[in-house]
């Protein structure tokens, strides 16, 4: 588990690690040495000028005047050192926890602060900067699946006094508690939930649970934010999960293809329907207009007919018959049962005739030309008729 400690003040990490030097570690460590060196130099200097009374020595005997001066300077330096030791600064991002005779005395805010040397013990704690801790690993979900979760906790020291005095190693406590809270919450959620929409809720739950733990231990830590950085199925099953993803896309694709089909077929059908209806409308208009036209013609004719019926009638009849007969081959028969139009299977005979007389296609339909085929045909017709009516007088016409 990686713990990201902010660099800088080593006191933050383990304020009690150097318990033996308590109270002595506030000043620069080389000060004593520097002092001693300075004193040595001074001693030599003064020793060399033996007998030269200085203003520093007051009423000293000649032999002991040097020693007295040294004592005085030593005194001044000690006083200076003590004064120097009595002040310390607290940075803007720090709070200082002060113990007096071992007992908690006060927590100091940033600025220049005074302390009683030896008696007061000051521990500075960075409180404003946000620290991070991470927890990751594979864990069980509620439905007994495995999931890999990567979580980052951002926190800071909220209460410097608790941080220093209540828990021996708050950062380790946080690390353990994070592991526990994360696995608890993942264990209370289903796999799909953890992987998808439940991630935000997971972060919130872990944060609450973690905060509760930290509070109950009195760590003085405050959770700023819990980020669930990633939730993934274990690598051994990731391929299967991707396959599901692909299947989802396939589903989408199939639906879209079908919709494409629908968008093609239905409008086309509507178009065809429109055409059918329009055609019907056209038919309706046409039929009606034809009726109007035909009846108008009839009415006109009727008017003429009513003026002179018989003449008109005869003229019409003859005109029509003339047209009809002019366009058809004719066989005239005279049978007992008059006024009967006879129907004979002539079309077949005509077909045979056309085949045998292929040399002149034009004359084959020319009924007026005296043609042996026609004669032959007529004979056949007459035979047929004779068969049908024995007592008939049949004559051959053109």
């Amino acid at each position, binding site marked *: 588990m990686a713990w990201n400690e902010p660099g800088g003040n080593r006191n933050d990490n383990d304020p009690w690690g150097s318990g033996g030097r308590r109270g002595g570690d506030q000043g620069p460590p080389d000060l004593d040495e520097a002092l001693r060196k300075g004193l040595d130099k001074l001693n030599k200097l003064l020793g060399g000028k033996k007998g030269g009374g200085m203003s520093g020595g007051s009423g000293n005997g000649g032999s002991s005047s040097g020693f007295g001066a040294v004592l005085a300077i030593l005194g001044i330096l000690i006083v200076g050192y003590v004064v120097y030791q009595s002040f310390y600064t607290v940075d803007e991002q720090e709070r200082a926890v002060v*113990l007096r*005779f*071992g*007992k908690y005395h006060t927590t100091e805010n940033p600025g220049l602060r005074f302390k009683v040397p030896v008696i007061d013990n000051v521990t500075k704690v960075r409180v404003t900067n946000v620290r991070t801790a991470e927890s990751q*690993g594979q*864990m069980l979900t*509620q439905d*007994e*699946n*495995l999931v890999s979760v990567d979580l980052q906790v951002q926190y800071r020291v909220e209460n410097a006094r608790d941080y220093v005095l209540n*828990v*021996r190693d708050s950062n380790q*406590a946080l690390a*353990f508690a994070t*592991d526990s809270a994360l*696995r*608890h919450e993942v*264990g*209370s959620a289903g796999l799909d939930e953890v992987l998808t929409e439940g991630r935000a809720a997971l972060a919130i739950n872990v944060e609450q649970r973690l905060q509760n733990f930290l509070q109950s231990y009195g760590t003085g830590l405050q959770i700023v934010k819990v980020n669930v950085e990633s939730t993934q199925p274990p690598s051994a*099953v990731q391929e*299967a999960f991707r*396959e599901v993803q692909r*299947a989802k896309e396939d*589903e989408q694709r199939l*639906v879209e293809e*079908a919709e494409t*089909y*629908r968008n093609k*077929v239905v409008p086309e*059908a509507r178009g*065809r329907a429109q055409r*059918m209806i329009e*055609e*019907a*409308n056209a038919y*309706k208009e046409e*039929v*009606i207009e034809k*009726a109007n036209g*035909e*009846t108008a013609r009839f009415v006109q*004719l*009727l008017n003429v007919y009513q003026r002179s019926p018989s003449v008109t009638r005869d003229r*019409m*009849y*003859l005109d029509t*018959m003339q047209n*009809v*007969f002019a*366009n*058809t*081959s*004719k066989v*005239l028969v*005279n049978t007992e049962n008059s*006024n009967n139009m*006879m129907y*004979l299977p*002539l079309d077949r005979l*005509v077909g045979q005739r056309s085949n045998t007389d292929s040399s002149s296609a034009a004359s084959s339909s020319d009924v007026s030309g005296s043609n042996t085929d026609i004669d032959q045909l007529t004979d056949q017709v007459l035979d047929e008729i004779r068969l049908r009516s024995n007592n008939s007088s049949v004559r051959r016409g053109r």
Partner: protein
Amino acid sequence: MSPKAVLGLAGALIVVLIVSSSVYIIPETHRGVLLRFGELIETDIPAGLHFKVPVIDQVREFDVRVMTNDLPARQYLTIEKKPLDVDSYIAWRIQDVDQYYRATGGDELNAISLLSSRVDNGLRDEFGVRTMHEVVSGQRDELMEKLVTRIDETLIDELGVKVLDIRVKAIELPQSVSENVYRRMRTEREKLAQEFRSRGRELAEGIRADADRQRTVVLAEAYSKAETTRGEGDGEAASIYADAYQADEEFYRFYRSLTAYEKTFTNKDDIMVIDSNSDFMRYMENLQGTGANR
């Protein structure tokens, strides 16, 4: 310097030495006990400045802050005999300094190992009566609370230690079981994938069927409408004809027949067999036209 002064200085030094060795400070984070010839004569000494008899008295101080210790991962069986690798930690602190000193000699490692074996036993018992599901999801809090109370009762008396919390960091499946889980997870996913694809086909089929239905219905409706319209046309035309023709029905039949003849015989390939007695031929036989209509 006079010998007197030297003597004074030495005296002062001795006094300072005696005072300094008879004064001790217990910091806020610690509690102390005072031993005189190995006997506990002052217990539970709070933070602050205290005095003792030099040389004779000895002070032992103990860190009473909350400590968290990782307990070694162990394998436990659930009620259904499923093995689980459990990694836990314990949050504890020294509550009764005297008892703690008596029980452990002030040795923290010793204390932790005692704690650890108790927690181990407790966890084994608690896991043994629960299913894996209960352990993993539902009853973690409950399990831990029970364990803490049970262990705590004895520990205060015996070790002078207060257990604040026992938490499971990780409950993991042994490697062999993990393989089974992976297999199951894969199968589940395959099932799900199949479901998606099948549902896709189902939806697609539904959409196509709906489209086909719409097409059929639209066309049928159009057909129905078209036929109705045609019928209307036919009806109206018929009524127009009827209105016109009923003025002289006989003439109409005549007129209509003529039209029909004309339309029917249009091809020279048609052959007509005509009775010579027909009206058309009435003058064929004689001028009076009596042949046909005799």
